Structure formats: structure tokens, C-alpha cells
């Protein structure tokens, strides 16, 4: 009896295994998959970024494998590791991916400070690592194996200002920035630089504190100087406060506010309401971009995840196609060859056309969209 039970069990197991084998998807051919690593914040308070990025990767991965995978028919796979937004956990994840899973390339990590911890390890082991959301200064200076595909703010602001100059005839501006915050101060430095390079005149530079609620003195002064526009580097709360005060003080809406990345948040038009109308900000990507690639991305993302994609998902989506292309171009699963292929790779995706600079940063800003606040939301700026 015992014998029968055991042999039945064995038979059942083999049958299960066989059926699993025969049910494997048609596109995942019998060839061994190429597995790359990804370290993202998948748990903890910042996990919305990591999950959006994973969604973007997975969506692109489906398309890549449907189209025959990489290296002429091998399926591509991603081994995810969770960093939980913690540097040490990110380092462990990288060691695990490189040492035991032997991945030829790593995607991520999500946060810039995680990249500063993990980048040097990957670089030392000569494994290319590609940040899709790391915008801090100095990321790619870690070493020749560190890449990023996200546009730093320094690349976005000049496009916004140039658009205002060329399309709206903005020639002289007043600048306001928060002088007690590293983020708003560094954006101001970029603005100052860009204004000088674009030949736009700065007629007043005013400061405020991040917790300030009274902007009337600065705005009264600016109103008297009659600038063509007001360039603002502020975080959400101060930014919304400035927009509300600007309207309250009777500064006409024809004097637009041009914001840095701090104002590129749905909270700003949400809080400031119609006082925000006409405010311009630049963004590496916008959900309402009308090209076919973007429309297809947005609709298939919505179909798969039942949610709207964000900038992080879009950056991840494009990056995976770029990586697949580079692996195929490398001709074999070899980190050095993939690295060389990446430096030469070009890709036309939802963010626009993409290639790397010699310093492994994004080379092309033609994909930057200037968006305008309107009735509590954003729309593409069309003068």
C-alpha cells in the first residue's frame, strides 16, 4: 500500500512538472534567458517610486520578449532586489546580484544616495549600472560603468526658459528663490546661468525662506519693476503661496511664473487653483504627450496596472528597451561589451530621442516638454 502511494505521488509530480513544461509561454523559447539585476525601493515610505519603475520595466520587458528577446531569440529576465530606500540594503542587494546571480548589468537603484553607495561597487566589479531616476549632481562621475537615463534638472530649466523667450517674447525677468534649502538654491544657480546664456535680463533677484508665508514685500517690488515674467525656484508650499499672493496683489496673469522642478507637482495647481493658471514648468516627460509611442505606452500601462503612469515609469520603460538593444548589439552576455554598446546606443522612445554623452548622462533634451498649469491641473503649453 505504501509503495502504491509513493509511486502515485511520484507519478503525479512528474505529470505536474511535464505539464508546467509544456505550458511555458510560446515566446520564452527553449534558450536560456539573459537575466539582468534591478535594485529598487519596493517597500517603505518611498516605494511608490520603486514600484512605478518596476511597472515600467515589466511593461517594456513584455514587449521585448514578444519581439523575440535579446541576442537573436534569448528571453530577457529581470531579477529584482528591494533596497527599501536603505543604503546598506542596496549594497547587499548589489553584492548578491553580482556575486551569486552573476548578472551582467544592474538597473537602479532608485535614489541618488543609494547610487552613491552602490555605484562604486558595481564600477569596481566592472558591471554597468544604470540609474533611471537618479538626478543628483556627480552620479556618473562615480566611474566609467555608471550610467543614468534621467535628465538632471540642470538640463530641463534652460529648455523652459528658452521656450518662454522664443514663444512668449520674455526678455526681462524677476527671479525669486528660497535661499535656505539646497534644492531650491541649486535650481536658482542653474536658472541664473541659463538666463545669462540665453541673453535674458534679470531685473531683480528676491529671496525668501522655505517656511515663509508672506511674500508681499518681494512681489510689490517686482510688480513695480514690470518684468515680462517671474522665475521662481521654490518647493510646493512656498511656490503655491507665491502664486496665491501674486494674484491677490493684482499682478496681471500676463506676467507668468516660470518654475523650476519644485513647482512640477500636481499639488501646486491643486492648492493655488486659478491663481496658478499660466505657470510654466519643464518636465522630462508628460502623460499628455501626443506622439504615438507615448499614447501606446500610456494605454498599455493603464490596461496592465489600472493606474496612470508617471515620469519614473516612463524613464524605466525607455531604459529597458535601450538596455535590450545594447545587449543584442554587444553580441554576447559580457559586461564590458554591453558597456561599450550602451555608450553607442540610441533609442527613440516615449521620452524622445535618447543617447548618452561621453560622460554617460542623457545627451538629448529635445524630449523635454514645457507644461502649463490650467484649471487645477497641467496641460501641454501651446502659445
Amino acid at each position, binding site marked *: 500500500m505504501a509503495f502504491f502511494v509513493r509511486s502515485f505521488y511520484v507519478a503525479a509530480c512528474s505529470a505536474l512538472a511535464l505539464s508546467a513544461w509544456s505550458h511555458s509561454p510560446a515566446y520564452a523559447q527553449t534558450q536560456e534567458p539573459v537575466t539582468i539585476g534591478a535594485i529598487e525601493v519596493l517597500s517603505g515610505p518611498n516605494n511608490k517610486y520603486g514600484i512605478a519603475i518596476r511597472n515600467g520595466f515589466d511593461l517594456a520587458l513584455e514587449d521585448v520578449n514578444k519581439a523575440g528577446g535579446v541576442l537573436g531569440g534569448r528571453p530577457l529576465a529581470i531579477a529584482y532586489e528591494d533596497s527599501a530606500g536603505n543604503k546598506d540594503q542596496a549594497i547587499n542587494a548589489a553584492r548578491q546580484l553580482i556575486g551569486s546571480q552573476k548578472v551582467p548589468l544592474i538597473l537602479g537603484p532608485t535614489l541618488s544616495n543609494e547610487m552613491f553607495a552602490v555605484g562604486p561597487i558595481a564600477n569596481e566589479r566592472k558591471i554597468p549600472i544604470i540609474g533611471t531616476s537618479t538626478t543628483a549632481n556627480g552620479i556618473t562621475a562615480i566611474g566609467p560603468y555608471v550610467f543614468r537615463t534621467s535628465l538632471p534638472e540642470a538640463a530641463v530649466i534652460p529648455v523652459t526658459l528658452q521656450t518662454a523667450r522664443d514663444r512668449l517674447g520674455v526678455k526681462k525677468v524677476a527671479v525669486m528663490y528660497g*535661499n535656505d534649502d539646497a534644492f531650491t538654491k541649486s535650481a536658482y544657480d542653474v536658472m541664473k546661468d541659463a538666463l545669462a546664456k540665453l541673453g535674458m535680463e534679470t531685473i531683480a533677484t*528676491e*529671496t*525668501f*525662506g522655505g*517656511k515663509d*508665508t*508672506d511674500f*508681499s*514685500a*518681494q512681489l*510689490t*517690488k517686482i*510688480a*513695480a519693476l514690470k518684468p515680462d515674467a517671474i522665475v521662481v525656484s521654490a518647493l510646493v*508650499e512656498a511656490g503655491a*503661496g507665491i502664486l*496665491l*499672493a501674486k*494674484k*491677490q*496683489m*493684482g499682478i496681471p496673469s500676463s506676467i507668468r511664473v516660470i518654475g523650476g522642478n519644485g513647482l512640477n507637482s500636481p499639488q501646486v495647481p491643486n*492648492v493655488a*487653483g486659478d491663481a496658478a493658471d499660466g505657470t510654466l514648468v519643464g518636465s522630462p516627460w508628460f502623460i499628455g504627450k501626443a506622439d504615438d509611442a507615448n499614447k501606446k505606452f500610456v494605454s498599455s500601462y493603464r490596461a496592465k496596472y489600472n493606474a496612470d503612469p508617471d515620469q519614473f515609469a516612463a524613464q524605466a520603460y525607455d531604459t529597458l528597451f535601450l538596455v535590450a538593444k545594447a545587449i543584442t548589439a554587444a553580441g554576447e552576455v559580457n559586461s564590458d561589451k554591453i558597456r561599450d554598446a550602451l555608450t553607442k546606443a540610441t533609442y527613440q522612445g516615449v521620452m524622445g530621442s535618447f543617447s548618452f554623452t561621453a560622460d554617460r548622462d542623457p545627451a538629448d533634451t529635445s524630449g523635454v516638454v514645457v507644461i502649463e498649469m490650467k484649471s487645477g491641473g497641467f496641460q501641454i503649453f501651446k502659445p
Partner: protein
Amino acid sequence: MLGQQLLNGLAAGAAYALFALGFTLIFGVMRVINLTYGVYYSSGALLALWLTQNGVSLLLALPLASCAIGLIAVGVDFILLTRLQRARAPELASLMVTLGATLLLYSVANTWLGTNVRRFPPSVIPSASFEIFGLYITLSQILIMVLVVVVVMSLSLFLNATRAGLALRALAQNPDAARLMGVRVDVMTAYVSFISGSLGALAGILLGLNYNAIQPYMGESMMLKGFAVIILGGLGDVRGALIAGVLIGVLEAMVAGYMSSSLKEAIGFVLLVLTLWIRPSGLFGQIQIKRA
């Protein structure tokens, strides 16, 4: 532009004066630097916000929230200060006790409500401004100036024309003599706590309304400004606080408008230091002679 800066400075200064009135009153009568005063400022604004969000009209929410915070102030001051007063503890003791209580209250508010900026619903007060002779003035600025005049007039009426006011002034001048004359110190302390708590709350609501930004920590930076105002005006001097408040508000606007907005916050403290150096008894204070 000069007119506009003056107007904005005047409105902000009027609210500073209102805030400093309660602060200086409690020092004048009780000889206590009450740091929890900034918490009354924040909680007044938060309470009025909650009331208006629940459909109470602003004109009702203003007195309601002010009086409620006034009553809370009576309780808090009783718990914190009565014991110290009875023991005739030095001023430093009350300063430290209220400092500890303030930090506690702020962290409770912070844990409970978060540091996010909250805003009055747009329907509470029209935000558009009127244009008069080329100057823009908002309804909340008008409200501030009218209310400050009304409050200051009723306060001086109370202090100068009622028995309770007389008792308060007696207490401020000489607590022991006042007690001997039959002034009930506990009752008077409660009066002062109520008035100063309500004034602090009222200032919080009005400035919260004017800039439409409210958060638990807003009282902290206001306290620093309050110090500058009451030292410039003379500690315990009601008229001095009024004038110094308006003066600092106007000077802030002038500095931001004609010098640099980075220096705006500094002007109050420059005045504070100068006052302490040159005229420690404040703008209108008499030089005090300590007799042994």
C-alpha cells in the same frame, strides 16, 4: 510702490502689535515670560480653520476660536505658573517651565496634525483685492486693521475704566500692595491669561487668513518677532507694544522693498539688540531704579 509697501507693512505690523499686546500684558501683570504664548497663536489659527471647514462662518469663528483658546490659556497658565508664583520663583524658572511646555505642546501638535501647510477654504473670505488710488488692499488686511483698532480701544477701556482693570494695573505696579488692598490675585491672573490667550489666538487667525497658510509651528517664528516687539516697546508696556509692532511691520516691508529681502527677517532683531544696548527700558519706558 512706496504706498503699497507701507500698506502691506502696516497690515502685517498691526497683527504683530496685536500678538505682542497679549505677550507684554502677561509679562506686565505676572512678571512671567510665557513662551506657551506662541502655541496659542498657532492653535487659534488651527481651531478657526477647523471651525470654518465645518461650515461655521468666519465672523462667528473669529470670536469663538479666540475665546476658546483664551479659556484653554487660563487652564494651561494655571497648571504651569500658579505654583511658581506662590513660591515666588525667579523669572528664569517660569521661562524654563513654559519653554518645556511649549516644546511638548508643539510636538504633540506636530504628531497629531503634521507639519503640512493648511489653508482656509476659498469660500471663507474673498481673496481678490480692491484697488484704491492704485493701491491693492485685501479684505483680510482691512479686517486686521479694523479689528486691531477695536481690540486696542476695548482693552484700554477695560484697563482704565473698570474695577478689574484698576486691580490689574495695581497688580502690575506692586503685587504685594495690591494683595493687601484685597485684590484677588488668582482671579486677576485668570483674567490676564484669558485676555492674552485670546489676543494671541486672534492674531494667529488674522495672519493665517492674510497669508492663507497655517501650520502648527507658525507660532515659533512669531514668538521671535514678539520678543523684538515687546523689547523695542518696553517689557510690559501696552502702548509701546502697539507702536513697536506697527513699526517693525513697516520696517520689514521697507527693508525687503528697498534693500534686500534676505535682510527682512533680520531688521526686528537688529532693533532688539540696539534697544537693549541703548535704551533697555524700551521706546517709552522710564529708567527703572532698583531700591534695596
